[in-house]
């Protein structure tokens, strides 16, 4: 229950290790006829009452893109206050308050919170994710304060008329007026007396849901509704053009879902998902040779390459911002503070790169691409005299090519091969992963698991290697840029070199393991399975796919 029940606060948040601060606010539905004037006259005889001037407050509920607060049973409410922003962080179910205070800036990330205690608690819930506005509520607030004979406030009563305002549609939805009873710790008895006095006559009925829930219901928003994985609907026997178009449509929807977030830079996850869709689309376009007119494909190929290029630098800086903590951990405590200039550099470059990205994504060029892409995706099936190629055959052919390429690359790598060879092999196995993802519905789940397992195992080694190699290259690049921008002290340079050396050492270990791992992958059994699944059609398979 949101209201009536008084429960031990520590019980309800034991899982988060969060201590409780204050008694929850109580909320009541009141009839429209009940006014502030009525309230005042009910209480006037027994209490000293002070009116605050009526205010208009914009309140917003913040959460991560994937609703981590909500899913952890928490509500993060922010409203503009006199000298900054009032934050109320509370339990969704009980209304118990974890944190209630005024801050100068709305924290978007856990590390924006000033006090270390809050910082850690936010971190526990949202990790490195950012908070964004979910439901803005415009509120007209009338306040009465009850004072004791010292002039100290002992209870606050707020009459709130709320409207949920949706930015996209400029739609406003009014919520019924409500009475908020805000207690002060140590003055609970007064609250009880006042409620008793009001309750009987005013016919107040307790509201047992959080205001966030009321607002969400009013606009029909479902928390937790967030899609970040494409769902391809490919059917065996489907015409290849149609199937590929369907997959591209799905990826396009994902791009659109994340475009706005990527432009606003609300959370690095938006850009990540946007790029994931771009990269996959580019691969499909590449592999769709022969299915669509060559000139059309060339245009889209160029434009998706361009998209990849303009979004890559921001993503790269994002990655390093996300890695930052792990970098600090790699260094001895005494060196950690010398990484601060690096963090500053990343933050500055993030701003710079992101502003460039935004220019690109809001450009006429992007709009033109978007338009052509949409009409391409929704175009009717071209009539063709030739028998349509089926997606099954195409899937097998593409996947088999990729497998053979992988085996050829793997076979050519020995202890002395340069890192570049492993990097190319990583690209192949990444591509293979995409292909399996695209076409997974075409295959028997059990059979596909039997080949994915060894592939994943090999993929992890290559991924680790590539990751470590790229980190070193990029860190060196950043270091040199920082030096040429004259923002690198000797100590900071040493700290960064220390990191690079540490990564190199780890890479060496992974590199040494590679040979053994590859031998484990490249067995007769695995090769046979790959051939059976994707190799040139045998009689049996033709039967299978009919």
């Amino acid at each position, binding site marked *: 229950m949101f209201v009536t029940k008084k429960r031990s606060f520590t019980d309800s948040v034991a899982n988060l290790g969060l201590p409780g601060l204050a008694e929850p606010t109580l909320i009541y539905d009141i009839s429209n006829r009940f006014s502030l004037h009525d309230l005042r006259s009910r209480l006037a005889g027994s209490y000293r009452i002070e009116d605050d001037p009526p205010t208009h407050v914009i309140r917003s509920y913040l959460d991560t893109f994937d609703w981590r607060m909500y899913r952890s049973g928490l509500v993060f409410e922010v409203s503009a206050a006199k*000298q900054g922003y009032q934050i109320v962080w509370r339990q969704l179910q009980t209304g118990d308050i974890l944190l*209630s*205070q005024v*801050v100068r800036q709305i924290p978007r990330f856990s590390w924006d919170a000033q006090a270390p205690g809050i910082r850690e608690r936010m971190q526990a819930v949202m990790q490195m994710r950012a908070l964004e506005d979910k439901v803005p509520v415009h509120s007209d607030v009338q306040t009465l304060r009850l004072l004791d004979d*010292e002039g*100290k406030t002992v209870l606050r009563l707020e009459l709130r008329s709320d409207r949920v305002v949706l930015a996209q549609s400029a739609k406003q939805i009014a919520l019924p007026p409500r009475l908020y009873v805000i207690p002060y710790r*140590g003055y609970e008895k007064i609250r009880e007396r006042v409620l008793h006095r009001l309750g009987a006559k005013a016919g107040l009925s307790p509201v047992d849901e959080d205001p966030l829930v009321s607002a969400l219901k009013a606009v029909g928003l479902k928390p937790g509704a967030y899609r970040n994985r494409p769902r391809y609907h490919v059917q065996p026997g489907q015409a290849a053009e149609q199937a590929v178009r369907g997959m591209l449509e799905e990826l396009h929807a994902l791009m659109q879902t994340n475009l706005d977030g990527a432009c606003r830079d609300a959370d690095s996850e938006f850009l990540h998902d946007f790029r994931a869709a771009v990269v996959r689309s580019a691969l499909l376009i590449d592999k769709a040779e022969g299915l669509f007119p060559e000139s059309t494909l060339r245009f889209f190929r160029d434009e998706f390459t361009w998209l990849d290029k303009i979004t890559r630098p921001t993503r790269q800086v994002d990655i390093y911002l996300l890695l930052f903590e792990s970098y600090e951990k790699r260094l001895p405590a005494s060196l950690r503070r010398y990484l601060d200039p690096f963090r500053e550099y990343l933050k500055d470059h993030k701003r710079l790169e992101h502003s460039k990205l935004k220019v690109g994504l809001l450009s006429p060029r992007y709009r033109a691409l978007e338009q052509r892409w949409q009409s391409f995706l929704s175009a009717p099936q071209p009539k063709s005299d030739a028998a349509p190629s089926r997606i099954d055959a195409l899937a097998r052919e593409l996947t088999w090519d990729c497998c053979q390429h992988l085996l050829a690359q793997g076979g050519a790598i020995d202890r002395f091969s340069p890192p570049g060879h492993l990097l190319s092999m990583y690209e192949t196995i990444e591509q293979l992963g995409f292909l399996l993802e695209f076409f997974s519905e075409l295959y028997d789940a059990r059979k596909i698991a039997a080949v994915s397992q060894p592939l994943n195992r090999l993929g992890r080694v290559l991924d680790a290697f590539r990751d470590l190699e790229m980190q070193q290259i990029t860190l060196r690049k950043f270091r040199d840029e920082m030096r040429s921008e004259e923002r690198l002290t000797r100590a900071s340079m040493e700290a960064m070199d220390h990191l690079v050396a540490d990564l190199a050492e780890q890479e060496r270990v992974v590199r040494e393991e590679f040979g053994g791992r590859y031998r484990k992958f490249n067995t007769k059994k695995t090769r046979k399975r790959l051939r059976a699944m994707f190799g040139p059609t045998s009689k049996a398979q033709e039967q299978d796919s009919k």
Partner: protein
Amino acid sequence: MKILATYNIKGGVGKTTTATNLAYLAAWEGYRTLLWDLDPQGAASFYFRIKPKLETGVRGLMRKKSALDEAVKATDFEGLDLIPADFSFRNFDIAASDTKQPAKQLLRLLRPISSEYDLLIIDSAPSISLTSENIFYAADMLLIPLIPTTLSVRTYYQLLDYFRKRPAQHLKLLPFFSMYDRRRALHREIMRTLPNEFREILNTSIPNAKKVERMGLERAPVVHFAPQSKPARAYRKLWAEVEKKF
């Protein structure tokens, strides 16, 4: 929970003024802050319009585990709570000396609520007693207002002398000049020379200012009702300097 106490053997040096203003600023910065008015005179409680009264008195506080929790009062300011003074606290020494570990009683009392706050600020009465011994044991930092006069400085020597005999390794001493008057040659002289002798003296000093005296009329910290005044700015600077020592 960090514990910060204002302390000086001498009275009227600005302990309460400092405790109340820093508590306000800490809460404003986002620290969940508790101010404990340990001076039976109840000046800090007065500044926050809270009656200097504990339902249980000091004896009840020592006996009942949840008594301190129940004594906490919200101030009118977000994030700042207060434990009011009580006249029976004159008897804290007697009550504490009846226990097994007389100097650890304060810390013991605090344990049940210590996870609820990031910062506890204690405003203490001017004396050396079992109460102050308890404060020294519990606190991480001691903020010591010094009026730059010879007499006031002498009390600092006394305090150092005390700690020489009873070392408190964990306790950081943070003396700073309070209520100074630039027009007085003696103040200027002491403020120039003393920091050479005591490196620990903070860089920030609080000037003597009429606005501070208005706290009794406004019944609020000066940083709240006159945020742009000279003493308010000085207190903000002092808070920033103290926060760095955490």
